[in-house]
């Protein structure tokens, strides 16, 4: 039952609000502006910081902070009484002691400066307390942002963001020194701290103390003025100080002028599957900054280093800007007409000569839903083949398959909000802090502030494992066993949710019997996790009202990847953890559009919306719409296509936006296959390793140069807008597909991606209500979307994705992982890292990122380092049965014993982990078993430079505490509270009845 609203009086008017709201919140909800610099970030909360003191109101005669005072019935609140106004003004005056107002020549004067706007609102006219410089120089050491202590108002928004939202716990305000300031770690230069460069602090800074370096001297009309003019000018302004109101008028005019030359365009991040959206502030072709907004549905104001600072690739000189055609041993530039005519001629020739299935199509999970839709339409309708697949085959197809078996829909069951609200989060074989950084912040925050419990099962002691209430280290490739044992234990203890199982799940008894062999003893023997630990995990799941399980490639990239994913869904079903808030299964999608690429049909067996191509009725629907007969048999997936090339079955291939030559497993074999192709088209924004094998290379446009939609890990469809025109002669991928289709005789006339989406929505019931109109600005839709626009952020509230609406428990057995043989004595683990995206084709173009993490490295445990007599910087060769790499060592306690970790940020083959991986694969979906490999190690050089520079955050020294610790400010001798000052001055200023 909802509690009744409370009515209170605000400036003599009745206001109604929910109990528990603060005065500040109640006013904000009613659209009443209340000053409050340190409550200006909704993601950080209202009233948690308490440093700015500008939100004072008079409550029944007493001065109180509106941000912390909860409303009460009949309470009389005034924000306009003399006393309240004097208090607000005093708060602001104390701030201006630390901040010089030179707005017109400040790069932060863009209409959204909280300090400027609040000072203006409070009609501050003069500096009450003299501004004095702090005895600290600006810290310019970080490549992407700078801190100017002289302008810092010590509000601590940055500290709060770093400590409690991003939870990297780097920033503090040192209240104890004579002149307080923000410090990094234990007061080291920013660049040498544990700062992960996520940009939260810069984003929340309410003034110009923390700023992106790309803004400095660029944003304003007069901000690039040389210092010898600027400084006297500020002095002059201060000297003649006609009152700040006049200055504000001028600065407001200047801010409006800036709107003319700075474009703010909403985009969706093109890196991981979290799907952050934010504004790109641009001036001509320069990116001034990435500005997140609280309205962004997945991330709010959060970003990671790549989303905030990783966009330099867009203007890289290495961008492909013109089509290339192979002539003998060189590529020569060509016109679009030449290139597309050649492709049409060759592909139609192969189709004629060798049949339709001699062509293969590999789609990109970095490109848009519309582009994936058109690509599968191109393959199916123009070239008559279902040989079309996307790169989710390399990562998450097993997770989708496991979910389709059990709950019916191959996607996350809820949203990031559910993960944040769960009582227990279990992370299996995933490293969200580095691979899904913004999603990880929500877990870290809930764990730090809201008593959320966290279990991590991983070989590595990654950041979440470090923070977890419980970290287990199962033997590689044995997750299915411990998960099934925990599930069996649930049944044995009577901890299964029998009501849920009875009402909503099929196949319970058969499944229960299939668990027979998964005793705690068996599990202990196989996984190395003790019985006690298993019982502890089961108990934690049992005791939590809501549990979410998250997993990624540590689960899927195995021979039994689909089965382990299935086992996870089984455990959640048995414990009733589906269909309610804070529960569910969350395969964390790797690329920005892994979800969407499969959703929109670049799969050999599915049309868009996962409708089988074999189904006559469904196929007929597409045949009628496209006016062409379509092939019935499912085509080859990526893995099978490579095999078929090797066998001489597939002769021609078209690949876009995928660095298959580095990221597919066993790349020596893949390269061999590429060399056998008669005709190979590669479409990319860079001349990739894969492009080196091509006959035609087509220059594509990245997301900032086109329109479209991406679908994130939450099944959330988000729209992005064009920031720049395509560079040189490059074109958006969808335009290229359309032109090629028309060269081959099709008659397509899409004017924009919106029209492509309209067609997909008409044909695929899952997207029936999706339209660009419904996706404007920060609007988004979590599919399935009904025709009337209703979407489903949380799935299975009423029914599961099967015709009878019930879920199905699905019996699975453990598949032993691949063993390379006895001589290969070290286990090789691999994956991503925070700073570089994937192999690094895009992020390596960012100087700041290269400064922080320029090379791949091999993580080696202390034990192994000692045993082999190597240290950080040693050069070693790793050999597997499939190939060799040479990399430098980093000794760390993130890995244990004989387990190695090699991140995949290599663009040089000799460092690429996939020289070592095999062509074995998940038995159900053909996803390569990247995580199952052993190697032997030879030491080549004992001494050498560390592959990771000392300015990397991993060497930092975080200082965890909660928030800004404002109590320390209040304890300072020189601190007088605002009500005290007001009280004192009130008496002095004339309410007294005696003369002096």
């Amino acid at each position, binding site marked *: 039952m909802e509690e009744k609203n409370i009515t209170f009086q605000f400036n003599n008017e009745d206001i109604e609000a929910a109990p528990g709201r603060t005065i500040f919140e109640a006013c904000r909800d009613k659209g009443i502006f209340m000053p409050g610099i340190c409550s200006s970030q909704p993601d950080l909360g209202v009233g948690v910081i308490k440093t700015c003191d500008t939100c004072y109101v008079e409550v029944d005669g007493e001065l109180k902070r509106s941000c912390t005072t909860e409303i009460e019935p009949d309470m009389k609140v005034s924000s306009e009484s003399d006393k309240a106004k004097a208090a607000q003004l005093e708060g602001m005056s104390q701030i201006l002691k630390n901040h010089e107002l030179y707005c017109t020549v400040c790069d932060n004067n863009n209409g959204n400066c909280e300090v400027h706007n609040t000072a203006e609102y409070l009609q501050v006219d003069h500096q009450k307390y003299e501004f004095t410089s702090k005895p600290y120089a600006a810290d310019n050491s970080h490549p992407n942002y700078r801190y100017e202590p002289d302008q810092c108002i010590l509000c601590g928004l940055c500290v709060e963001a770093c400590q409690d939202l991003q939870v990297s716990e780097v920033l503090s305000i040192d209240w104890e020194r004579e002149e307080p300031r923000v410090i990094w770690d234990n007061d080291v230069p920013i660049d040498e701290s544990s700062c992960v460069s996520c940009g939260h602090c810069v984003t929340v800074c309410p003034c110009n103390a923390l700023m992106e370096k790309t803004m400095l001297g660029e944003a304003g009309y007069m901000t690039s003025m040389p210092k*010898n003019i600027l400084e*006297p000018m500020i002095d002059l302004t201060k000297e003649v100080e006609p009152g700040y109101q006049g200055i504000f008028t001028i600065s407001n005019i200047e801010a409006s002028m800036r709107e003319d030359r700075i474009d703010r365009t909403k985009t969706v991040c093109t890196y991981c599957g979290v799907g952050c959206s934010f504004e790109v502030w641009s001036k001509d072709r320069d990116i001034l900054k990435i500005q997140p907004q609280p309205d962004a549905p997945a991330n709010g104001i959060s970003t990671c280093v790549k989303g905030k600072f990783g966009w330099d690739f867009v203007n890289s000189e290495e961008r492909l800007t013109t089509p290339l055609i192979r002539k003998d041993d060189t590529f020569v530039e060509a016109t679009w007409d030449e290139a597309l005519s050649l492709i049409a001629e060759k592909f139609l020739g192969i189709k004629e000569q060798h049949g339709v299935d001699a062509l293969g199509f590999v789609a990109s999970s970095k490109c848009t839903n519309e582009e994936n839709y058109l690509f599968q339409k191109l393959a199916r309708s123009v070239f008559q083949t279902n040989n079309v697949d996307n790169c989710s085959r390399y990562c998450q197809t097993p997770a989708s398959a496991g979910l389709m078996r059990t709950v019916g829909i191959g996607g996350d069951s809820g949203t990031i909000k559910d993960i944040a609200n769960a009582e227990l989060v279990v992370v299996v074989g995933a490293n969200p802090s580095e691979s899904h950084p913004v999603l990880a912040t929500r877990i870290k925050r809930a764990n730090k502030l809201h008593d959320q419990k966290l279990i991590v099962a991983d070989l590595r002691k990654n950041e979440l494992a470090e923070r977890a209430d419980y970290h287990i280290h199962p033997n590689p490739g044995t997750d299915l066993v411990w998960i099934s044992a925990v599930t069996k234990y649930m049944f044995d203890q009577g901890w299964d949710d029998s009501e849920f199982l009875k009402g909503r799940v099929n196949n319970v008894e058969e499944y229960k019997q299939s668990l027979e062999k998964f005793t705690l003893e068996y599990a202990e023997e196989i996984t190395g996790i003790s019985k006690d630990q298993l019982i502890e995990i089961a108990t934690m799941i049992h005791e939590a009202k809501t549990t979410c399980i998250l997993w990624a490639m540590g689960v899927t990239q195995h021979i039994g990847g689909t089965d382990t994913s299935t086992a996870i869904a089984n455990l959640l079903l048995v414990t009733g953890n589906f269909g309610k808030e804070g529960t569910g299964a969350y395969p964390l999608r790797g690329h920005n559009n892994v979800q969407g690429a499969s959703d929109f049909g670049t799969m050999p067996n599915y049309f868009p919306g996962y409708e089988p191509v074999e189904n006559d009725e469904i196929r007929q629907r597409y045949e009628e719409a496209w006016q062409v007969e379509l092939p019935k048999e499912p085509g080859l997936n990526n893995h099978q296509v490579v095999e078929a090339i090797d066998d001489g079955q597939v002769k021609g291939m078209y690949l876009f936006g995928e660095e298959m030559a580095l990221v597919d497993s066993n790349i020596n074999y893949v390269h061999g296959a590429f060399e056998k192709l008669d005709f190979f088209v590669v479409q990319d924004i860079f001349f990739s390793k894969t492009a080196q094998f091509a006959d035609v290379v087509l220059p594509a446009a990245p997301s900032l140069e086109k329109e479209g939609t991406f679908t994130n890990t939450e099944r959330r469809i988000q729209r992005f807008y064009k920031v720049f025109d395509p560079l040189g002669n490059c074109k958006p991928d969808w335009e290229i597909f359309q032109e090629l289709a028309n060269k081959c005789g099709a008659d397509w006339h899409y004017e924009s991606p919106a029209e492509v989406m309209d067609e997909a929505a008409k044909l695929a019931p899952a997207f029936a209500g999706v339209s660009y109109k419904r996706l404007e600005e920060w609007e988004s839709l979590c599919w399935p979307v009904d025709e009337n626009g209703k979407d489903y952020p949380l799935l299975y509230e009423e029914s599961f994705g099967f015709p009878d609406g019930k879920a199905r428990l699905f019996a699975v057995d453990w598949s032993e992982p691949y063993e390379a043989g006895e001589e290969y004595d070290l286990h090789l683990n691999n994956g991503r890292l925070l700073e570089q995206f994937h192999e690094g084709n895009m992020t390596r173009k960012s100087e700041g990122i290269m400064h922080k993490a320029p090379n791949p490295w091999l993580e080696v445990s202390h034990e192994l380092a000692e045993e082999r007599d190597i240290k950080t910087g040693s050069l070693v060769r790793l050999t597997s049965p499939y190939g060799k790499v040479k990399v430098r060592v980093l000794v760390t306690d993130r890995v244990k014993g004989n387990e190695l970790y090699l991140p995949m940020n290599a663009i040089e083959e000799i460092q690429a982990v996939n020289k070592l991986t095999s062509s074995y694969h998940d038995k159900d979906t053909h996803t390569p078993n990247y995580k199952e490999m052993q190697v032997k190690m030879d030491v080549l050089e004992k001494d050498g430079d560390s592959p990771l520079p000392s300015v990397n955050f991993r060497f930092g020294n975080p200082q965890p505490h909660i928030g800004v610790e404002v109590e320390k400010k209040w304890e300072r001798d020189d601190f007088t509270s605002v009500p005290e000052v007001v009280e004192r001055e009130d008496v002095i200023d004339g309410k007294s009845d005696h003369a002096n």
Partner: protein
Amino acid sequence: MAKAITQINVQKKTEEERQRQLQQDLLNQLTENHQSLDTIFDIVDELNKAGVLDMVKGFLRMRDQIGSISIEKVNQPSMHHLIKNGFHAIEFIGKLEPEKLEKMMDGLVHGLDRMAKETEKQEEVSMWKMFKLMRDPHVLTALSYLTAFLNGMGEELGTNRQQEGR
């Protein structure tokens, strides 16, 4: 049977080709906008004849030095006074109510006219005549306004002194 290759023959446009392309683009723009351009050329021509362009050129070329010199000159006490007084004067005018000011100004103009006539007479004014004049209703009105004005001014000056004295 395609081996991986990395050689790309970039058909670098020769400098001449690039120039020609640029010229062509420019010409197209010129033709499209010829009417407005004609006007601009006229204006530029006039500016040149008037010597303005030369001056502007010099100023722009030396902008850093000039900026630095002038800001130094401006950043002096006398300049501060000038600017401050300027602001005060503007503020003062802003505070006056236009109707009252109009009435006052009309009175002032009229008074000045009369004064001018009076000065032309060049005759001695006797005390007696002065007293007689005081009884004139117009003079009385003006005098009462003046005393009211003095009263207000004194009050404001008085409070200021009181505050400073504390």
